[in-house]
């Protein structure tokens, strides 16, 4: 029992379950999933779909945070990605031609990769503080997106592209399949190779890592590039869902949601040890939370407050010091038995 409580995923999973229970109580059919036209439908499926872009962004964010960094530019990169893809489609004679769609995707991802490389350059080569370095692109990126779309909300019709956002694959939302697929591959690579350990070493003690021959600079650079790429993919999923590129609002605040997902998942912002499965649960918690707000009919006025309360609860339960307090309280009754029996009068002991 104690092991379950101690498990790093316990509180995030508990939060997720609690949210699902709250939803089911408010709307008994909440968890029902039906099959229509061979596709799955229902609130849980929707949640998976809305989780998809956040999961991708949070994946990159986790790796960046592991190296003691942070990437604030992901929201802007999301906007750039959508702007590039949709502008390309809109300017093409046949937006539905497979070649055009593939080029649009390729162009968007390539540019986002470049943006990520730029961030990585600022941080790893020039040694600029990550929060400042990525702040540059966070503000400039939306301007770039604005330039690309010419200041308008670009809309376009392209059935093959739209599949990315709202289509289905084997009965599941394409976006979810893609995002969870990418996540699984990256998580597998990180943990099966030595990448995870080397990233953690870099994040915990950069100087020691350098002396040990870890290519810290390359690693740091790589995670920012990856973060840009994943944000680009997320941008494609988001723009394909609405089929509109909105330079101002696409991916707005997604960097904050992603950071929250990482923190809820139990990865410390101070870098080092990271936990991808936690990030997965964290992203699900946030997507479910957004859904819960509508299901419970919470007024938009108090929504941010409600979100904040849930987040505070989970992060508090995650904090080592809180946990220590909790375990100390639970352990107290047993200390008597551990005292050396021969000692005549051990004074009352409290831990914590």
């Amino acid at each position, binding site marked *: 029992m104690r092991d379950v409580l101690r498990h790093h995923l316990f509180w995030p999973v508990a939060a997720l379950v609690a949210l699902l229970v709250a939803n089911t109580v408010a709307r008994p059919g909440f968890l029902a999933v039906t099959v229509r036209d061979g596709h799955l439908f229902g609130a849980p499926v929707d949640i998976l779909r809305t989780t998809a872009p956040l999961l991708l962004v949070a994946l990159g964010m986790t790796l960046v945070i592991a190296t003691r960094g942070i990437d604030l530019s992901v929201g802007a990169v999301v906007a750039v990605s959508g702007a590039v893809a949709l502008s390309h489609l809109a300017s093409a004679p046949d937006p539905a031609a497979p070649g055009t769609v593939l080029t649009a995707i390729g162009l968007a991802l390539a540019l986002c990769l470049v943006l990520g490389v730029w961030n990585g350059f600022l941080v790893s080569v020039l040694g600029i503080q990550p929060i400042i370095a990525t702040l540059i692109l966070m503000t400039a990126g939306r301007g770039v997106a604005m330039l690309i779309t010419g200041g308008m909300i670009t809309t376009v019709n392209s059935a093959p592209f739209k599949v990315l956002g709202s289509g289905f694959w084997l009965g599941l939302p394409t976006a979810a399949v893609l995002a969870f697929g990418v996540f699984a591959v990256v998580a597998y690579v990180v943990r*099966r190779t030595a990448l995870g350990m080397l990233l953690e070493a870099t994040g*915990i003690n950069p100087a020691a890592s350098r*002396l040990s021959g870890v290519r810290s600079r390359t690693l740091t650079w790589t995670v920012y590039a990856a973060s840009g790429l994943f944000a680009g993919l997320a941008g494609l999923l988001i723009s394909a869902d609405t089929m509109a590129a909105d330079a101002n609002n696409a991916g707005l605040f997604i960097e904050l949601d992603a950071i929250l997902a990482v923190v809820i998942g139990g990865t410390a912002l101070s870098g080092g040890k990271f936990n991808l499965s936690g990030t997965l649960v964290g992203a699900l918690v946030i997507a479910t939370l957004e859904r819960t707000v509508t299901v419970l009919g919470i007024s938009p006025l108090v929504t941010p407050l409600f979100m904040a309360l849930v987040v505070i609860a989970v992060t508090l339960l995650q904090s080592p010091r809180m946990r220590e307090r909790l375990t100390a309280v639970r352990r107290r009754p047993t200390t008597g038995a551990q005292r050396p029996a021969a000692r005549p009068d051990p004074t009352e002991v409290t831990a914590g």
Partner: protein
Amino acid sequence: MTQQTPPPVVEMTGVTVEFPPVTALDGVDLHLRPGEIHALMGENGAGKSTLIKALTGVYSPTAGTILVDGAEHRFSGPADARAHGISTVYQEVNLCENLTVAENIMLGAEPRVLGGLNWRAMRRQAAAHLRRMGLDIDPASSLGSHSLAVQQLVAICRATVGDCKVLILDEPTSSLDADEVAHLFAVMRSLRDEGVAILFVSHFLDQVYEVSDRMTVLRNGGLVGEFVTADLPAAELVQHMIGRSMDVLEAAEEAAERAERPAGATPLLQVVGLGRKGSVQPFDLDLYEGEVVGLAGLLGSGRTELARLLTGADRADVGQARVSGRPTRLRNPRVAMGHGIAYTSEDRKGEGVVDGLTVRENIVLALQAERGWMRPLPRRQVDELVAGYIERLGIRPADPEALLRNLSGGNQQKVLLARWLATAPRLLVLDEPTRGIDVGAKAEIQKLVAELAADGMSVVFISAELEEVLRISHRIAVLRDRRKVAEIDGDGASMDRVVDLIAGGGAA
């Protein structure tokens, strides 16, 4: 009990500290009396640092009482303890590297004028504290620009600022030279004579005998007993610490045998005119296979800086290096590692341990980094390797999955040694490898170094402890004022001659 002693200022009874499943301390007693220097003795991992942290409120004991001035007291942390007159210098120096020396010393006791800080007075007072410790550095310089040993002295200065009735020093001498140790002891004695109770941890038996009045010995988290230093012969002390008898002096006496170097052999590493502005003056050095070269010099003489240039930790701005006769630029540690050159830093906390990773991960880190992330070492091989080093170096707890931050200082040091041995280097540069290591393990490590050299490895050995350098080196390079001033044969070197060279006498 035997003589008239004042009542203890600190009286710890039956103190137990647990880190489930480990019992780090099991019912330990400690009595500190005013006006005494009390040594806390024990092997690596015996529980010395834990006992100190239990007293100052860093850890909360699960059993036992702590009396301060006769009243039961539980401190909430080091700041609380300090407010009650208990000043502590912990084993790992914990200062603000980006503040100045003066700020670090006076932090919390800053002189004020009109609600603001009186910077001039602060610098003046800090300078006085530094002088007392025999330190001649600019109080306005940033702490990070100084060597670890200086930082340690600054930490001690900081602890003696303001009123304290108990001063706790956890391995304060581990990176100090004889000179600094002498200064420190003078300060300790004068504080003792003012009635301060001093608790002192050191693995140097001669220091303990020189300065302490009384000692408490721990073994495996348990109390062995309290002794009057003068009544306890060293051999008996060692026996108390390790639980069996061992002639330390004899075990450490490892004859430095060297296979005769063939005439005209190519040095493994040859540097000519290598130097770096503000760090070391250009120097020449040849390092051969199967040879241990010691670096001797005072604190700040450039020992560490020289080692850093040899290993790519710092980049030289003049001079050439040849590895096995081929010209190379040792641009960074990675390049050096590619040539089989390994470097263990003296700064265990800052440049050594990755404290959030496990013992296993720390041991394989360099080896894995060398292979690159795409070629993870097979798990079975890792497990064998790690188990091998845990056994060979006696790392405790013998648990590959223990987090490094939970190991005692000496055991962390052993893990670092294992990290570099695992890369099977051709040239191993050891900067204070025995820092904080207990008597038994130290002899083991010296033996290990001799064996490695006998097997053909080239070793550079740096230690603040001159006897150690003399004992295991075949050749000794002497440094003074950031310049290599002499190179002498280890076999013919007498302590006096080396001391002479270090201090500036003799042939330069």
